[in-house]
């Protein structure tokens, strides 16, 4: 189905769906209006961001990661061992400890360490929280209106990010940092803030965000079943662009990740093995 046909079919469907499921008359009305001119262009862009680009960016992410890992695996081995002493009794365990507990940071920068651990642990929960929205993978009870952590995971990734950003402004880290360091942090900060708005709205306000977790569940369901349906039909309300921007920022992150220092996610274990083995 072309994007054009999809969008048209869905605008019709969305009117019916909205009338059936939404109690908020204004939201229902806003998606029922047939768009023309500039609004129609925006609809198309929204659709491209919300559906095809999701697949494209995830594919780019996976291909990029594999490519980076393979490049390194195919290089010659180092000419001599790079280990440090005293040697650990079990190099593999020691490297695992380095990767997940970062004892060096705990020792030399305890405050930074607390934020790093909080951030990284919350990031894992954030991934789980998104998987939970896919109906087939549900982790929380079916009727839950909260995202995993009920908004706390969002706080736990956003606050450390602010800390990471602020500490970079102080010397000597400021002199050491390059533009990509700030841009990466800003990208993530905005990505999280848009996510926070939706998740905090649903968990922390009496009537919830305009789009409910159930609504997002339908969107994820469509994505996971490759229906290519326009999510506008299941995501009602005038705040749709918050979701679109959140998704666009996530896609940017996926595409950039293989080129960025976030590759440390995959390199941390092998690189720590070098000093331990």
């Amino acid at each position, binding site marked *: 189905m072309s994007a054009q046909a999809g969008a048209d079919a869905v605008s019709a469907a969305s009117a019916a769906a909205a009338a059936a499921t939404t109690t908020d008359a204004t939201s229902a009305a806003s998606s029922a209006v047939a768009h023309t001119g500039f609004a129609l262009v925006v609809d198309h862009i929204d659709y491209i961001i919300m559906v095809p680009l999701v697949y494209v960016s995830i594919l780019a992410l996976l291909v990029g990661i594999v490519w980076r890992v393979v490049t390194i695996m195919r290089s010659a081995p180092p000419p001599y061992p790079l280990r440090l002493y005293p040697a650990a009794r079990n190099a593999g365990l020691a490297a695992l400890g380095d990767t997940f507990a970062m004892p060096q940071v705990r020792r030399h920068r305890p405050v*930074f360490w607390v934020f790093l651990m909080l951030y990284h642990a919350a990031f894992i929960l954030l991934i789980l929280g998104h998987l939970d929205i896919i109906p087939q993978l549900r982790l929380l009870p079916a009727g839950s209106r909260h995202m995993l952590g009920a908004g706390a995971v969002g706080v736990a990734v956003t606050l450390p990010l602010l800390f990471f950003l602020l500490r970079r402004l102080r010397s000597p880290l400021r002199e050491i940092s390059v533009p990509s360091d700030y841009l990466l942090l800003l990208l993530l900060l905005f990505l999280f803030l848009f996510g926070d708005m939706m998740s905090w709205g649903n968990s922390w306000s009496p009537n919830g965000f305009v789009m409910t977790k159930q609504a997002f569940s339908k969107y994820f369901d469509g994505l996971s079943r490759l229906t290519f349906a326009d999510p506008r039909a299941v995501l009602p309300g005038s705040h749709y662009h918050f979701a679109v921007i959140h998704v666009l920022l996530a896609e940017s992150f996926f595409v950039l990740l293989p080129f960025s220092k976030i590759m440390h996610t995959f390199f941390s274990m092998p690189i720590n093995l*070098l000093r331990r083995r």
Partner: protein
Amino acid sequence: MEAAISGTLKQLFETRLHSAMRLYLDTCARCGVCVEACHVYASMPQARYTAVGRAEVIRKIFKRYFKLEGKIAPWLGEVLTLDDATMDQVSDAAWSCTGCRRCMTFCPFGIDTQLIMSIAKALLIGADKEPKLLTMLADMSIAKSEGIEETKPGFTRAVEDLAPEIRALWPHSKDPVVTVEAEGADVLYVALAGKHSIIPAAAIMNAAGERWTLSVYEAVNFAAFLGDSKKMQLIARRIHDEAVRLKVKEVAIVECGTAFRAMKYMTGVHPFKVVAFVQLISRYLREGRIQLSKGTLKGTLTYHDPCQIARNGGVLEEPRHVIRHLTADFVELRPNRADNWCCGGGGGLVALGESDFRMKSARVKAEQMKASQAAIISTACENCHSQLTDLNEHYGLGMKVEFLSKLVADALMK
């Protein structure tokens, strides 16, 4: 800079891109945890003297020539193009780093700044901008193996002349007091140019009744300072071939950190064991082959762990074991062992002179020495010994700087 040269430099860079190097260049989060690890930064707080600051110079060249990012958005990583100004930065980074790898123990990923600096040094050699003295010394070491047959008789005679001084430390030394390249020995001892590196060691090995012989070569590996792995192999190869020819079981390396690490870890596998001389002393004590009297040392003793022997070589407890036999009046430097501050003289800086920089960049070392309140500081590395001696003088610390082997030889129970 001419395009041809920068092309050559790019190729040189590429030859260094093994898997570990790629991991090191790709992974740094610029988190800054390594900042305080470096004694140079701790003594002179400037970003260019941090481990990450140094590595970034190379990383920015890497991005420019080997990464998509450097081609489509060079400003993202503030990439550097290979030109004269960049080469000045490369030189500044490389020759202000002693290769102590203390930063590697701070980094959450364990990034090896010394290894990254080996690219810097390779580029400097490629651009003909390296300190010529080190290259000259490395070349001389290699050339020495070619003319060795002519110099050997003179060397042997000079060594034989040391007999009285060795007998002064260990009177029961049997004739011949020293042999050079004698077949049938168990241990090949590789010394340095000065007789101070031979006399105490000879007395100790004679006291232990060791079947040992002296190498005609010097242990020091100047190419390791240069990060020139090919020459480093050639220099080590001379000793390797000598040891194989003499069929020794063990090669004992004089108190020289770089010589030890280069021989033991950086130049492939050998059919013989490689030990640092302090390990040999520790073994003699354990086996009861030598006894030391505790009365010889006056005043509190401390010990400086040489980076290339301790953190990078794994010889951490043997020196303490030896010291327990020497004196009860011992204090540790703080920090010590793998965490010890570098003396500030490694990476070829002592050989190059660099006195002003060495004194300024090792202020924290001098403070650490002073805080120990020890009267004597011992160590097991020629480079460290020279640097500690200079620091002692420059900062007016009033300490005595000694080789561990010298203290042991003086304390041999006759």
